[in-house]
């Protein structure tokens, strides 16, 4: 990456003033929410008031602190095993973040490589790879994920792999499209005249130009991955218990709807707020970096 930085023309002034003006432009509420989520994910052990997987049986199914019968020791109440819901939600951010980051990394890497190759090479390779992407895109994603996760056994690693391997075409399509238009530029032709190899051109001249779009798609897809992971965990084929995943917590709370509705309610609210912030941030980033991505 360091080499890429040098090659790019320096268009912006650096220094603290620049940083401050960039910070001021961030959308306030989504940035705040996402910062909290990131802090929770990084420092879950320090922030959470209780251990996420150990419950006190005395304190089973206590409601939230502001409801009669609740206690301030458990702000959002406890579940049927006496585990603190707030602590589980805080630790749950870690699961959501880890799964979505790693799945996006896998999908993004595969998708980018395939998109670059297809777009730059063109011809039969392009046609074949894009047919493959079409096929992969037309699959009933949740269903396939459920079948795979069920057969391979629900585990943290499998969830990431399944989602990552199913999501690459979304990246590949976008990257291919941009590669097609970028390779028409004069500097690519000049590099070719200068005798640069294909892989050099793709890596040094094309890839840096698609990084902004990759960032935008990644942010927008991250919300989708969190939702997908939630659905899988909810169905019992995602992150296995007792790890505190939001979808899993909602699934556990489902059976308590009659007696302890807060067990399912709070993780869902946490999830909705996070997704909302992520979508808003992604939309903002898209308009900022690349308004032509509006279709994505």
């Amino acid at each position, binding site marked *: 990456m360091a080499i890429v930085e040098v090659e790019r023309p320096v268009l912006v002034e650096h220094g603290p003033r620049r940083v401050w003006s960039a910070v001021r432009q961030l959308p306030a509420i989504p940035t705040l929410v996402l910062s909290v989520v990131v802090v929770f994910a990084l420092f879950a052990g320090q922030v959470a008031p209780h251990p996420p997987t150990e419950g006190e049986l005395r304190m089973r199914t206590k409601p939230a602190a502001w409801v009669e019968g609740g206690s301030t020791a458990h702000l959002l109440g406890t579940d049927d095993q006496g585990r603190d819901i707030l602590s589980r939600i805080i630790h749950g951010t870690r699961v959501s973040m880890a799964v979505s980051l790693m799945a996006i990394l896998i999908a993004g890497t595969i998708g980018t490589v395939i998109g670059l190759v297809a777009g730059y090479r*063109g011809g039969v390779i*392009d*046609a074949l790879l*894009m*047919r493959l992407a*079409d*096929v992969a895109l*037309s*699959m*009933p*994603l*949740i*269903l*396939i994920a*459920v*079948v*795979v996760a*069920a*057969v*391979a056994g629900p585990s943290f690693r499998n969830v990431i792999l399944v989602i990552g391997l199913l999501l690459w075409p979304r990246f590949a399509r976008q990257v291919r499209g941009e590669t097609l238009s970028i390779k028409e530029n004069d500097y690519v032709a000049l590099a070719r005249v200068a005798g640069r190899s294909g892989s050099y051109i793709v890596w040094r001249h094309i890839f840096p130009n698609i990084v902004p779009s990759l960032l935008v798609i990644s942010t927008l897809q991250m*919300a989708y991955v969190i*939702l997908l992971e*939630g*659905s899988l965990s*909810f*169905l*019992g*084929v995602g992150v296995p218990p007792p790890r505190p995943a939001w*979808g899993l917590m*909602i*699934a556990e*709370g*489902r059976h308590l*709807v*009659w007696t302890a*509705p807060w067990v*399912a*309610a709070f*993780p*869902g609210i946490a*999830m*909705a*707020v996070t*997704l*909302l912030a992520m*979508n*808003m941030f992604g939309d903002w980033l898209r308009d900022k970096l690349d308004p032509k991505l509006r279709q994505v």
Partner: protein
Amino acid sequence: MQRYILGRIAQLFVSLLVVVTFVFLLSRLSGDPVQLMLDVTATEAEKQALRVQLGLDQPFAVQYAVYLRGMATGDFGRSVLSRRPVLEHIGERLPNTLMLGAVAIALSVVIGVPIGVYSAVKRGTALDHVARVFAVLGQAVPTFWLGIMLILVFGVWLGWLPPGGKSGPESYILPAITLGYFTAAAIMRLTRSSMLEVLGAEYVKFARIKGLRERVVIWKHALKNATIPVLTFSVMLFVIFLGGAVVTETVFAWPGLGRLILEGINTRDYPIVQGGVMVFSAIYLLANLMVDVLYSYFNPKIRYARPGA
């Protein structure tokens, strides 16, 4: 156009082949199904007899060929648990999934279109803002959570509607809302933006200049053209609904196809899983094909956007 559609149909079969092959490989990778189907006390001879009966003693390629032939002819075998043909199970469940999808589509259109029109016409008013919040939330609220909360409010607290299962028409309401909220929000956004586009068009201005009443201008002249993308999108809803079917059916204990597949997975009833996934994917891919064809019909650019198509 014809070439494009033919290409897409060919692609559908490739996709289907990939799905069924995938499921075949997975079910074979997950170990010896005979172990799961028989008691632990079963003798080796009994196991061998079952293997022969299921064709598991054949070479891998032969098994695959037999399996493919079964998938293509609709002979999905029998359920391990109930011993009834898989096709019968699917026949019982599929109508429930399709009906729920149809109700949810109707609901999303009935809610999404009028709100979208009002939101566009009364742009910038309080109503527009409320509608847009409704739409943005639709993107973020997890379906399975929304379902549980609806059960809590209308099933448990108010006791107005059944919390799950399929009984009378009233049992459709909560699952349909759950399934349809996301899409109602999407339809609303789409109607709003295409109405805004149309409302600025010359012919709408002209209709106003002619002195037509505002109501006629909006609901007759403008909406007519604004519905084209919405109509196309409605078919796509079906694709989205099928995707969400597994989750929604689980939340509401809805006896649909998605639930059947999940039950099959949980009980290791592989014939059910294989047949279910095959039928589910075929419908899903067909709906996807319809969306693409409709889009390319309305927007010829798409036909040329893909290489080789």
